[in-house]
């Protein structure tokens, strides 16, 4: 501060200006000291208006500003702690009744989706075509848009040659899955499935077709038709004789012999 003689006493305005200058210098010093202790905050907080002139005190000596110690964060007591108290009991909202209603609703839904809705006895739950959900496995019975029915064996489609063969091998209509022709095209064709019958007392082999037995003339014809010995089923001669004769294989083979 500038020293002044008592003769030329400064005016009130000058005194106020001096005090303001002192206050500014004091504040600047305090800021510098704070900057040395800690990095400045990103945005300075809003400061209150300058104190009245009477409250301005002489500058404090520069140095680090002591910070109050931070108290450790208090841990909330958890279930299991000694000082833990359970929250107050919540009032009832009749959840039991709501659950009872939900139970009845779901039970009704389960019953509803199991009721047959079409003339084939198929229920709502099973009415969607299931071609997209087939598990590809041996024994899967498939049908495309045509009348042919196939059985999948070793990744090959085997055509079931007749209704007799279908029934003889124990297939049922509810096992037949109707699929897109494109799905069928994805598989190789295997040997067709025929019912080949033979009785122990006779050397002849017959093919069952249209509820008639068709005599296969000889081994060459048998092999040429794509048959294998494993497909021949043994039945009693009486049963074979009871079946009416159909045209022999080949058709010009002559009259068929009786077993």
């Amino acid at each position: 501060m500038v020293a002044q003689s008592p003769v030329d006493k400064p005016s009130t305005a000058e005194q106020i200006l001096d005090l303001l200058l002192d206050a500014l210098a004091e504040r600047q010093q305090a800021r510098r000291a704070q900057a040395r202790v800690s990095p400045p905050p990103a945005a300075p907080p809003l400061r209150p208006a300058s104190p009245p002139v009477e409250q301005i005190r002489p500058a404090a000596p520069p140095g680090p500003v002591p910070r109050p110690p931070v108290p450790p964060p208090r841990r909330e007591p958890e279930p299991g702690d000694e000082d833990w108290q359970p929250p107050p009991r919540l009032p009832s909202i009749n959840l039991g009744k709501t659950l009872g209603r939900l139970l009845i609703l779901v039970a009704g839904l389960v019953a509803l989706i199991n009721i047959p809705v079409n003339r084939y006895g198929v229920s709502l739950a099973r009415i969607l075509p299931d071609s997209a959900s087939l598990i590809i496995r041996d024994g899967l019975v498939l049908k495309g848009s045509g009348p042919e029915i196939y059985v999948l064996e070793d990744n090959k489609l085997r055509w079931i040659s007749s209704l007799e063969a279908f029934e003889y091998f124990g297939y049922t209509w509810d096992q037949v899955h109707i699929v897109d022709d494109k799905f069928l095209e994805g598989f190789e064709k295997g040997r067709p499935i025929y019912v080949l019958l033979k009785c122990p007392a006779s050397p002849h082999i017959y093919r069952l077709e249209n509820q008639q037995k068709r005599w296969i003339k000889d081994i060459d014809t048998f092999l040429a038709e794509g048959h294998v010995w494993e497909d021949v089923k043994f039945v009693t001669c009486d049963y074979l004789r009871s079946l009416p004769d159909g045209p022999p294989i080949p058709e010009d083979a002559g009259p068929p012999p009786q077993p």
Partner: protein
Amino acid sequence: MKDLAVIETILRNRHHFFIEIRDGVELKEKMRAMLISSILFLALYGGVLGATHSLWQTLSSAVKLPILFLLTLVICTPTLYFFNVLFGSNQSLTQNFALILTAITVTAVLLLSFAPIVVFFLLTTANYQFFKLLNVAIFAICGATGVTFLSQGMRLVSAAGKEGASARRWVLRLWILIYAFVGSQMAWTLRPFIGAPSMKFELFRQLGGNFYTNIFASIGEILGFFVVR
């Protein structure tokens, strides 16, 4: 209806429920109510699962699903109990049983809440693999929530025995893993619950394969990598 009221206590006032289990208040009544509720809920959800195949499958799954959970409970409870005792727990076997039953009840009630969604997908999609994976996801969510309840309950019920508390927490974590393994293997043993559409109804399928490879195969098929054989 009175037995269903226990669900409200478990869901809304669980801390009080666990304190009552700790203090042994009406333990038998609680267990009976939880048993009846979970059997009802699980049977209904099982019925929904099986409806996609046939009426027989519906009935069979309705019986088998509660059996799956209760058998898993019976098989896994002694392990948890004895390991807890080993590490200083003062709970009784009945208290342990009640706590695990609480987890099953929570799982069951959540499964029931998912039932309308499952019915919706059952009626609108015919993809078996998708339906199977959807249900695996639902079971995983509900099961995880159930064991979270078990974990909270165990902490509260075993609060009296401070000794070995940390070890018991580890025991519980490992036990939850074992419980999940036993549950999934039990589900595989008792299958089918949904029933593959191309296969005839069977009460139990022949053993072979395992739950996890089957799920991976289903995910592979859904993503178009291969066809389940």
